[in-house]
């Protein structure tokens, strides 16, 4: 929609024009008939174009145009008139008319012409306005740009430049006015350190072609320009020239340089800093200086591999994390913190650390300054411990400690400091005591006179003495004072330890009592109590020695050795034995030695002694007690002698019994020589063998080392030998095998005699009857004792066996009657086994009360150890025919 104001003095024409223009709806037409009216309308409304007649009442169209243009209004203005003189047209053009339309010809064509003119004019006006705006914009932009802008045409002529350009290149006003490209480039050249770079490009823009360029150039006045250029093309891509932008970046450059220098300075500072510096970001150490590396003892390239907390001592991690978080959150913190860190080798360091927040690569980080304070910390700790220790000692020692003034005279002044123990000891409060002087407390009696104490404090500076202290309740306690002079704030004072020696006094008394008691006991003792040194020389002896050995204590102590009293013939032996005991630090108990009394008589002394050793185990000597056991010893000897005599007597009796039995045996033999009857001869022989078997028992008894028991194996061998002899046994024909377990079996006389007789009867019986009508045979004698002291005696043969109808009770012969009776006497059982040959089993126990067994070697509970083979070699008894 184009709004048009039509001005004409002919209303009819206005009406036609309005109608025509508005007919297709693209025009809005307002009309008026005078310029005055038109100006009024234009004040109220805005129009896109004005169509005005030339000939108007009052002011004509040209004047109207001039009026508008003079007022700055550039609205499209079309003269539409019937008059068309050349002057009017010229003046209209001069006044700035946009179109001139004649009202001549065919009206339809005129209106089309008019419409075209209006549209063209409005459009052109619009473009013009836009162009003007663009230019103004461009110009404004150029003028405010911080960059100097230079546009150089194809031929090297300067097409455009802004103000900034002239100021930054300091182009004088004269040159500006001259607007000479050559002058301007000459001015630029003045600043260039290397003109061959930029200058040809400015003089001949086509050198760089279609490329854009950028370069920093340093001017000889130390400024730095950032120079950029781009080619300028026309609508048909035609090369017009090149646009240059110059930006003064000197400040930035200087800042950069300054920053670089500053960074270097800080780097040196940081690298050589005595403090460790850490930058921690996102929980990792992103930077540390050499001191920091040294502190945590980790290579630079491995630092960031672990969370910083891992370098912190576990107990301190929570606090370190808290501080780090608070620091990053900007919360208030104590400036310095102390914590422990652990280096690679696991060593703990105390550090004092402070931090600030810094940006690091665009993100917040903490910059930490740490100082190793381990030594200081240890020193502090040692100091604290020492102090604590001192207080601990001061207040908890068992002794009182006091500090008091020392006067010029050497006498004490008032108390300066007292520990708790002193207060408790003396029953005063701390404050009460501070009002006092040691002389107020001490009793007048001292182990050293007071004047001497004073003198010693002045000269030696140290005194130990004993005195009494009067307590608040009036009681007096004995004390030992151990005082040293000290200098406190330039003044002489005494630091003294007060020891309550009540207990010590009691103990001393107890020791004295004990010593007295011991002295009385030892001196009144029945026993000779003595001590020797490590060599055996007497160092102490109670007076009893005189009663025993005839020597006084004075004769012994420091002069004689324990072995000096031994009997001369055995002295060397007993001396070396005694000294061996000394070497081994052994004890001896009731050791009896034979000694010689001063009067030469023999004395038996029974001694008990223990070594005295020092804390290193070195022998100091021996201490012990001895008794005169001469009477007892003599009595013992007498008893032994009596016993020996009795044993001899008993042996003699056995010998005589045996001799008597042998005599009977010989009588029976001699008697048998005169007997012709075979039966009588047999009877005599049987009796003889019974007597002999008993005689042998008595022989074994008197030969035995133990008078009460019979070595039964020997006995049986001897018995069998005798029987073999008596019966003229042919060893080729009859073998007698003896098997006794254990082989050293012993029996007492009450068991041995019946047992021997039984064997005699059974073997005799076998020899007489078993092998009648036979070439050969074996007789076995088996005697064993089990662990329960039960005996088994078996006599067997492989002969003809018991006669038919044989029964134990029949006791058909005297032999069997005897066997049966003897078994009963033993309290045993008798069994006849009838089978191949004859076997008699007898079982019995030895009543230990009757005689007692000879002590035997333990059998180890294993019977298999004992050879069970018949002792055939010994058992084979042969008598030549």
């Amino acid at each position, binding site marked *: 929609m184009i709004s048009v104001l039509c001005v004409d003095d002919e209303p009819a024409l206005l009406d036609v024009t309005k109608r025509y223009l508005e007919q297709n709806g693209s025009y809005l037409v307002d009309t008026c008939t005078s310029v005055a009216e038109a100006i009024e309308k234009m004040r109220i409304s805005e129009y896109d174009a004005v169509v005005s007649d030339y000939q108007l009442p009052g002011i004509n169209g040209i004047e109207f145009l001039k009026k508008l243009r003079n007022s700055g209004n550039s609205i499209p203005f079309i003269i539409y008139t019937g008059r068309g003189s050349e002057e009017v047209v010229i003046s209209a053009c001069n006044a700035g008319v946009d179109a001139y339309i004649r009202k001549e010809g065919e009206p339809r064509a005129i209106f089309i012409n008019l419409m075209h003119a209006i549209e063209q004019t409005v459009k052109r006006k619009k473009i013009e306005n836009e162009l003007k705006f663009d230019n103004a914009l461009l110009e404004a932009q150029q003028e405010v740009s911080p960059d100097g802008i230079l546009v150089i045409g194809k031929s090297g002529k300067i097409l455009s430049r802004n103000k900034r350009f002239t100021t930054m290149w300091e182009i004088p006003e004269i040159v500006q006015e001259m607007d000479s490209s050559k002058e301007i480039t000459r001015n630029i050249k003045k600043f260039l350190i290397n003109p061959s770079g930029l200058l040809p490009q400015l003089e001949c823009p086509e050198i760089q072609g279609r490329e854009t360029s950028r370069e920093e150039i340093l001017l000889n006045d130390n400024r730095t320009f950032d120079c950029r250029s781009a080619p300028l093309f026309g609508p048909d891509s035609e090369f017009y020239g090149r646009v240059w932008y110059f930006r003064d970046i000197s400040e930035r450059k200087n800042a950069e340089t300054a920053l670089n220098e500053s960074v270097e300075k800080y780097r040196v500072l940081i690298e050589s800093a005595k403090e460790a510096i850490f930058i921690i970001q996102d929980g990792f150490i992103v930077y540390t200086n050499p001191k920091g590396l040294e502190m945590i003892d980790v290579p630079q390239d491995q630092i960031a591999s672990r969370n910083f907390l891992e370098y912190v001592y576990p107990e301190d991690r929570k606090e370190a994390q808290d501080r780090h978080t608070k620091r990053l959150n900007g919360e208030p913190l104590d400036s310095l913190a102390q914590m422990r860190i652990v280096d690679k080798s696991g060593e703990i360091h105390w550090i004092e650390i402070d931090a600030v927040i810094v940006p690091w690569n665009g993100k917040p980080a903490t910059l930490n300054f740490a100082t190793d304070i381990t030594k200081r910390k240890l020193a502090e700790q040692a100091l604290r411990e020492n102090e604590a220790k001192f207080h601990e000692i001061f207040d908890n020692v068992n002794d009182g400690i006091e500090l008091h003034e020392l006067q010029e005279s050497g006498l004490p002044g008032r108390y300066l400091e007292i520990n708790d123990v002193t207060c408790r000891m003396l029953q005063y409060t701390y404050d009460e005591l501070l009002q006092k002087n040691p002389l107020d407390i001490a009793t007048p009696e001292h182990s050293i006179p007071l004047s001497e104490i004073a003198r010693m404090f002045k000269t030696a500076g140290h005194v130990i003495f004993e005195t009494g202290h009067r307590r608040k309740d009036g009681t007096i306690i004995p004390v030992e004072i151990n005082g040293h002079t000290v200098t406190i704030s330039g003044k002489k004072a005494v630091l003294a330890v007060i020891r309550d020696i009540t207990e010590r006094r009691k103990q001393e008394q107890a020791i004295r009592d004990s010593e007295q008691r011991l002295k009385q006991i030892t001196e009144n003792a029945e026993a000779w109590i003595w001590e020797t040194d490590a060599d055996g020389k007497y160092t102490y002896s109670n007076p009893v020695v005189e009663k025993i050995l005839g020597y006084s204590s004075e004769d012994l102590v420091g002069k004689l050795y324990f072995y000096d009293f031994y009997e001369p013939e055995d002295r060397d032996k007993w001396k070396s034995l005694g000294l061996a005991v000394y070497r081994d630090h052994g004890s001896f108990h009731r050791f009896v030695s034979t000694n010689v009394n001063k009067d030469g008589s023999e004395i038996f002394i029974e001694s008990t002694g223990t070594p005295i050793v020092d804390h290193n185990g070195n022998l100091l000597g021996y201490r012990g007690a001895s008794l005169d056991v001469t009477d007892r010893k003599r009595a013992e000897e007498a008893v032994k002698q009596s016993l020996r005599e009795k044993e001899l007597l008993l042996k003699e009796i056995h010998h005589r019994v045996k001799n008597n039995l042998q*005599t009977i*045996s010989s*009588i029976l033999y*001699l008697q048998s020589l005169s007997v012709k009857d075979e039966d009588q001869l047999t009877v005599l022989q049987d009796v003889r063998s019974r007597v002999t078997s008993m005689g*042998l028992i008595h022989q074994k008894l008197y*030969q035995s080392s133990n008078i009460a028991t019979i070595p039964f194996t020997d006995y049986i061998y001897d018995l069998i030998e*005798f029987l073999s*002899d008596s019966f003229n046994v042919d060893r080729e024909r009859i073998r007698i095998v003896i098997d006794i377990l254990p082989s050293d079996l012993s029996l007492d006389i009450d068991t041995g005699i019946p047992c021997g007789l039984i064997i005699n009867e059974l073997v005799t019986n076998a020899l007489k009857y078993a092998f009648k009508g036979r070439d050969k045979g074996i007789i076995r004698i088996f005697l064993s004792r089990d662990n329960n002291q039960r005996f088994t005696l078996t006599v067997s043969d492989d002969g003809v066996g018991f006669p038919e109808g044989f029964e134990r009770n029949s006791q058909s012969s005297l032999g069997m009657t005897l066997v049966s009776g003897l078994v009963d006497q033993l309290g045993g059982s008798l069994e006849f086994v009838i089978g191949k040959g004859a076997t008699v089993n007898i079982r019995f126990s030895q009543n230990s009360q009757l005689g007692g067994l000879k002590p035997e070697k333990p059998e180890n509970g294993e019977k298999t150890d004992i050879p069970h083979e018949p002792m055939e070699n010994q058992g084979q008894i042969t*008598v030549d025919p």
Partner: protein
Amino acid sequence: MTGKKILIVEDNAIVALELKERLSRIGYAIVGIAGTGHDAINLARKTEPDLILMDINLKGDMDGIMVAEQIGTFRKVPVIFITAYSNEETKNRAMKIAPAAYLVKPFKEQELYSSIEKALGVSI
């Protein structure tokens, strides 16, 4: 071998008789029986035996070994000691005399006979 003179020194007369009887039966001449050391020495002088059977344990103040020593001073005659004791001390003492045999009671009869034969064989 028969007819050899044997002196028996044995303080038990009955035992000596048995011995005499046994030896006589096999042909020896028993020239005497002595019950004490003194008798033995006297008989040894008087009967000049070819062999002495000597019991070590004798009545009186001399035992058989001492008697044998005494006899050895005037007559070289083999001695067979017979004893019921067999302790080492006695045996050692007896061995110093270099007896023809040393028989411990009870010995086998045959042992006695062979000892006698051997002793007489050596002495002849």
